[in-house]
């Protein structure tokens, strides 16, 4: 009996002692830098948050877990900062983690969302959250950090771009429309038919809205870049990609609002006045790399690219200067995805 008790005790010690190894407390200075949302694998719960610090030129990984003592959730998709709060949208956990942006301590978890993807702020008190599976955009009350309502689009949603009192919401998955919403009354005003699967959007220096339509995963349609006047909702220009094999994603623009960037087997550049898609590649994707997301520092035009490698092991954050020269390559989390700048004019 005594042996048995010993065995049980030893066994329980094994179970209780072997916890996930703790990451060292980063003790980083939250000066200027960029957050990287590491998506992790679907249903594996291994998504995380990284931060690249300009001060130390280092990357700090697994921050949410090390600060809050619990996993971030299943497939965090995007992050945004408003005032002193940071918001991480966790897709397959149907939640938004609201954190103090300087300490990263979670202050509230907004739950009950259906497959949320991206958040965009209408004003200081209201935000819209898109959804991959539901037909509605969720309205978030930023004062109470709660769901205050829904806007029924009758279709799924992805990217959200807000200009004045108008929200432009892309119906990406199997869609081809940009829904126009009156953000004062939260009602759908209009819809604009664009190319297949509008995936990402950005505004240029003239206030024009650019929509990147991927063309669909099956490559049966051409990808398109569509320029829309947000005042009239009219399409001003459509640039069709030269081959169906082109599969562009993740449209961004530089700090001047003049040069757009996107990913298509490397980093591509396009001036807003261009009439056709250039054939050259600005930054070449090397063998073994998989460029997944891109972000442009609006102040110095540094180019951040995430490399998801094989989507299983930890990926990389690549930092290029504005001329496309690689400055550093740092190991991030699993499937490093969208990025969120934490910058000031002095950074």
């Amino acid at each position, binding site marked *: 009996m005594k*042996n048995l008790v010993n065995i049980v005790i*030893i066994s329980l010690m094994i*179970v209780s002692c*072997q916890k*996930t190894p703790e990451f060292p407390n980063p003790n980083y200075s939250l000066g200027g830098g960029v957050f990287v949302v590491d998506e992790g694998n679907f249903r594996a719960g*291994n998504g995380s948050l990284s931060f690249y610090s300009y001060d130390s030129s280092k990357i700090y990984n697994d921050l949410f877990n090390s600060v809050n003592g619990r996993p971030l959730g299943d497939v965090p998709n995007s992050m945004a900062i408003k005032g002193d709060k940071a918001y991480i949208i966790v897709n397959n*956990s149907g939640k938004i983690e609201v954190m103090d942006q300087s300490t990263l301590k979670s202050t509230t978890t907004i739950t009950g969302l259906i497959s949320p993807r991206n958040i965009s702020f209408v004003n200081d008190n209201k935000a819209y959250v898109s959804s991959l*599976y539901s037909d509605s955009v969720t309205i978030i009350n930023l004062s109470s950090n709660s769901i205050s309502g829904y806007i029924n689009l009758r279709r799924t949603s992805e990217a959200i771009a807000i200009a004045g009192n108008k929200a432009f919401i892309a119906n990406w998955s199997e869609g081809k429309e940009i829904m126009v919403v009156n953000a004062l009354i939260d009602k759908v005003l209009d819809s604009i038919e664009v190319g297949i699967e509008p995936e990402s959007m950005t505004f240029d220096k003239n206030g024009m809205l650019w929509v990147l339509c991927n063309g669909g995963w099956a490559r049966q349609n051409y990808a398109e870049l569509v320029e829309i006047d947000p005042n009239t909702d009219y399409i001003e220009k459509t640039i069709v990609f030269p081959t169906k094999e082109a599969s562009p994603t993740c449209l961004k623009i530089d700090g001047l609002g003049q040069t757009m960037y996107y990913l298509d087997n490397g980093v591509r550049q396009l001036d807003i006045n261009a009439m056709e898609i250039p054939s050259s590649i600005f930054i070449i994707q090397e063998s073994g790399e998989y460029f997944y997301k891109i972000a442009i520092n609006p102040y110095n035009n540094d180019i951040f690219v995430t490399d998801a490698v094989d989507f299983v092991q930890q990926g990389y954050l690549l930092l290029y200067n504005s001329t496309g020269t690689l400055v550093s390559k740092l190991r991030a989390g699993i499937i490093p995805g969208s990025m969120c700048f934490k910058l000031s004019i002095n950074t």
Partner: protein
Amino acid sequence: MKNTLLYIAIFLSIPVHGQMSAGTDTIKIKEVIISRIKLPSDPPGYKKTTIDSSVLVNYSNSNLSDMLSENTDIFIKSYGMGGTATPAFRGTDASHTLVDWNGININSPMLGQTDVSLIPVGLIDDVQILFGGASMSLNDGGIGGTINLVTKPVWMKETLISINGGTGSFGQYSGLIKVKAGNYKFQTITKGYFQNSENNFRYLNTEIGSEPVWQTRTNSGIQQQGFIQELYLRNSNNIASARIWYQSEDRNLPASMLTSPNPGEKQFDESLRTMLNYDSFKGNANLSFTGAWMMSRLNYFNPLASIDSRNLSEILTLKASLDNPIGEYAKLKIVLEDQSTVINSNNYNQHKTRNTATLAASIERNKNRFGTTILLREILDNSTLLIPDFSAGVQYRLIEDKPYYLKANISRNSKMPTMNDLYWVPGGNHDLKNEYDLVYEISYEMNQKISGPLNLKYNLAVFRYNMKDMIQWHPGQYSYWTADNIQSAKSTGAESSVSLDYMRNKINASLKAGYSYTRAVAGGSNIGNDISIGKQLMYIPENKSTAAFRIGYKNIYSSWVANLIGQRYITVDNSKYLPGYFINNLSIGIKFTLKSSSIDMNFDIDNLFNVNYQSIAYYPLPGRSYFMKILFQLTK
């Protein structure tokens, strides 16, 4: 290494408090003629074990997943009650494990694996485990090994009816009825079962907030039912049989603890397996024909993601084999098998077919203390001849007339891509090659009667697997993944098992304990600075140990089964892992026999110490649970 030593220490200290098993009173049976049933022969030089009916009877209301996990070296990757469970040998993948029914493979041709949580142990008479190259004596594709489920007759003049009912925690209730009748020339066996379970157990969710929260598992119920009908006919030199196995399962799939909202996934599985077999014996020669037609349906629904996946596969297998003696000490075995597969799936562009023809020839020779085996296999995949596989084994009996064997074998075994690997839309790759491995194995086996009532069996095996051209789904040029032969891995390890049986007067006891060590690491890749190279593969435990002590005295019996699983890494760079766990199950029963009938009542406690654990990250498993069953048996 420290952990390894600790596990070994625990393993060595377990024995006396171990396990127990049924079989208390001696039952006088009528004359039994052991026939030559079509079972795989045991070629010299290979490791093969059999889980016999005395163990299986303890799991008559359980599924194959629980039985394999607690009694073998096979690692079961389980999503918990109601979820899928897949078996893997020696660091290989679930798709490298074949599950056979009387020598005919029943793996899904689409997924290439079998969900062993759906197979009720009560339907099965024996379970044979063929490790590594030993699987080549049955089929192709069992890179890791083969689990052969045997259903068979007992040739005696008897009618037997048994009714088994059980109920337990989490809304579990089940029933199993068996009717066996016949004589020395004809046997009919009917088995029917149902199992229902809500699986609505409580668990502590430590992952979603700053404080742990007790939650109830939802969307994890399962209903299943099925039957097997078998007919056997024989005369002096021939045996003919017909078998039908039908089962269906309707289940909700439980979600990860981190998933919200619960997507409400459902899966419907249905299978109909039929088999006709004819064996003819002449002297020591055996000619055998088997024809099998098997249908399996798998429909998956995810209302949240609007997924309605419907899949139907049909396989027609024709198999002929000849065992023919060559001289006094050797025999030649030739197996010719043709398999036609048809898949109808809304995940493929159109229905897909595949035809494979396999010719395997082996020579086995046993003379004096030496035994040898040489096997060659050639596969014709549609119209393409594949690189042949081979295996060679050697065996030496250390002491004349004593069952102490030293064995060694080397094999090249390959596995064809699954139909999903080839044709799934998007990403299926028509140009995939076979995966293959080179297996090296040395083992020692002994069976020793220590004293009158005490018998000792011991087995030690050391293995090495070099796996090449492994198929991996990876991000392709566009926004979807594709399958390619890009992975390699090496697995090295050892398995040891000891079995002590004691039988004297009214006491019947057995102690079985096993330990396995598996170091399975990722090989080279086309990724620069790949951090997975040389690291333990995810979800493969380095250490696994099982122990079972079973004892019976007069009409009372009891068993204690302990199962220890070491830590399993959940990232390819081994930076994170799930902690190991040690689960104990206790069972006690009493059996009353009255003339030709008997009643057996049994009470089980699973996870006796209420350990909180996970087999897959964020999929909780139940704490302490109870199950009560009663078996009524009538023999005439």
